[in-house]
């Protein structure tokens, strides 16, 4: 047998072996994949049912006009999106939503930081104050909104107390200059409890040695706060920033209970406007188009935060 033939046979043998091995690998890979899918299936099915299918449906509805029960009536392509940008309502809702975030998120984080610093003091009975600072966790958004609706009541609320000291009626919820601010105040109040607890918890995980060595180096209380406490809290701040911002984006309950989006659309935040168009005006397509826009805005915003803000965050 000439050498070349030998080599040929050998090589084909080798090839066969290799291909056999590859086949085995592929088989195993498929098996692995199926097994993985089985493990994942509960999560996947839930995601399909509650995320992907509704998402797909939203896209579909947003390209139609519907009858008042939500049955698709006519395909209109991008008309609903075109209307979003032609009418001032969507721009107004976006603007008000960002304003609302601006009013609520930094305020509630700052106030909570202050309360957490107070709650971190080693005093007798401090746990009572910690409880007081965090008590709003136990209050639902609807309850808080109703409470504040009465506080803002033009006749019997805080206006009555103010009238006793000679301050005349403040139009808390009935003027477009003050309504958004009044609702924001409710939200800040409600948010403080959770924020304080999270900041306080993070503060208490900061190792004592850091403060001790800083004290030996002669750092004042303020410098210790600026150079040790704040940097070590940055991951908590980042977490709160993301969570509070997304929550503010979704604000619905206080608006629904206190203002219904008025006066003059001044509190018509995006999610409320979607609700209004969907349930109330029966414009399902238009509402779906708005939610798709909300989806993209939140996607962009969150990725932005993760890419840029996260770099400045110190993780332990």
């Amino acid at each position: 047998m000439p050498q070349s033939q030998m080599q040929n046979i050998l090589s084909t043998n080798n090839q066969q072996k290799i291909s056999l091995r590859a086949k085995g690998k592929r088989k195993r890979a498929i098996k692995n994949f199926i097994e993985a899918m089985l493990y994942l299936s509960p999560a996947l099915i839930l995601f399909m049912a509650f995320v992907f299918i509704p998402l797909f449906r939203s896209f579909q509805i947003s390209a139609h006009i519907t009858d008042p029960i939500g049955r698709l009536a006519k395909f209109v392509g991008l008309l609903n999106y075109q209307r979003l940008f032609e009418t001032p309502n969507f721009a107004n809702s976006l603007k008000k939503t960002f304003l609302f975030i601006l009013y609520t998120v930094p305020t509630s984080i700052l106030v909570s930081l202050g309360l957490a610093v107070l709650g971190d003091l080693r005093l007798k009975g401090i746990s009572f104050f910690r409880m007081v600072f965090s008590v709003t966790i136990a209050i639902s958004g609807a309850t808080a909104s109703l409470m504040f609706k009465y506080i803002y009541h033009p006749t019997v609320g805080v206006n009555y107390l103010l009238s006793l000291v000679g301050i005349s009626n403040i139009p808390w919820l009935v003027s477009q200059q003050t309504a958004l601010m009044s609702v924001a105040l409710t939200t800040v109040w409600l948010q403080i409890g959770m924020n304080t607890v999270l900041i306080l918890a993070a503060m208490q995980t900061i190792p004592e040695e850091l403060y001790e060595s800083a004290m030996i180096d002669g750092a004042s209380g303020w410098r210790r706060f600026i150079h040790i406490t704040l940097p070590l809290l940055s991951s908590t701040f980042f977490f709160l920033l993301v969570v509070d911002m997304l929550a503010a984006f979704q604000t619905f309950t206080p608006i629904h209970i206190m203002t219904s989006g008025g006066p003059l659309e001044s509190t018509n935040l995006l999610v409320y406007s979607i609700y209004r168009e969907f349930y109330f005006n029966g414009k399902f397509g238009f509402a779906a188009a708005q939610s798709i826009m909300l989806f993209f805005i939140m996607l962009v915003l969150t990725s932005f935060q993760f890419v840029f803000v996260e770099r400045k965050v110190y993780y332990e």
Partner: protein
Amino acid sequence: MSKKLFHFMGVLIIFAMILSACQPKAEVPVEEPVVEPPVVEEPVVEEEPMPTLAPPPEEEEVVMIDFWHSMGGDLGGIAIPQMANDFNASQSKCYVEPIFQGSYDDALNKLRASLQTQDVPAVMQLYDIGTRLMVDLQMITPVQEFIDKDNYDVSDLEPNVLAYYTADGKQASMPFNTSTPMLYYNKDMFAAAGLDPESPPRTFEEVWEAARVLTQYDDSGNVVVSGISMSIYGWFFEQYLAVSGGYYANNANGRDALATEATFNSPEGVAILEWWKGMWDEGLMGNYGRVNADVRTAFYAEQTAMFVDSTAVLRGAMDTVEGKFDIGTAYLPRPNEAAFDTSGTIIGGGSLWIISDSSPEEQACAWEFIKFQASPEQQAYWHTMSGYFPIRETAYDVPLAQEWREQYPQFKTAVDQLHIAPNNRVTQGGLIGVFPTARQTIEGAIEEVLADVATPQEALDKAAQIVTDAIEEYNISMGLVD
């Protein structure tokens, strides 16, 4: 917190957000202040026992039906169960269970959702402005069919009330709770200001002048008592438009033919907002936003001398201020004296609908129930519990109603106002499928005018355009036009 865990939580939260963003959610079914029908102040009832429903009968052949209603407070807690009990006791073939479904809007949304599940009530109470929508959705059996089959005599029923719920020449639903708005005023304040408490203002101009006299200031010039207050409520605008003789929509309010256009930006409509704005600019009106109940509270607290609200709140108002001051009632103000002869108020409130998805036996029971509730005795009871009008004349002769009229003579204004109104296309009110949207749009327009963002003409032109667009889209989506 470790970085991984943090990422994981971040992703989790984003998914949660996406989820909720894509699915506009209904939260907390609270009372909807903007579009609620004439609100009924819960009347204070002396020690009236809570009626408990008799247990459902055991026999198989008894037809059980659900009755959805939107009456809160004592009306839903006492009056409605009492009336259902009376019906169940009056015969043995049907058994009605009343179920409170929240505000009219909530109830309508639930009905829309349940149409796909077949789990629907046989009879349902819904607000006046849902009439066109209910007819167009083709999920109801017009009561006309039962009236014809039964040879039911409707001659005793208030014609103006029946007319509102007539669509395409057929009685679509049976009126149940009906009311109109009127002017309430503080008689003591009238006397103190040198006005005659027995001759209240009748026209826009007279109301304006009275408001000037009634408004009181403190030493630094702040308003302590407003002359008049009205909540920013689309229903009031509809009523003012009707008493001015203006149409809400084209084709005679959508009653001669399908409405295709909103027409409330007419000179009549503009005049209403100019009047409103004039009093507002002079500082004669209190600012209570869109909430009717807050205006009433201000009146009870003697912070406003006059206000406009539904006749249905009379009993609650009388019971609340008892002994503090005297309440007077007057017709809803008209643009001029001549308008009293040519036009009138629209009937508001709600009616009872028979849902066609239920079986013929259930629908027959629903009709029996509706007939029973339209009887003079039931109407007299309902009328005295609330301040809603009885829907038939003979209910006024029931002793219960007579006693009530002696106790609350102010209610005569309401009845007279109903009876002086001619029955024509104006007083029958607009018949459009997007009424909730229209009402809300007009409320926005009023806010724009009061805030100096737009003139009355501009604001109404814009609102009319929005409503016209909504009507067009509605007509297309319902297959009413091509």
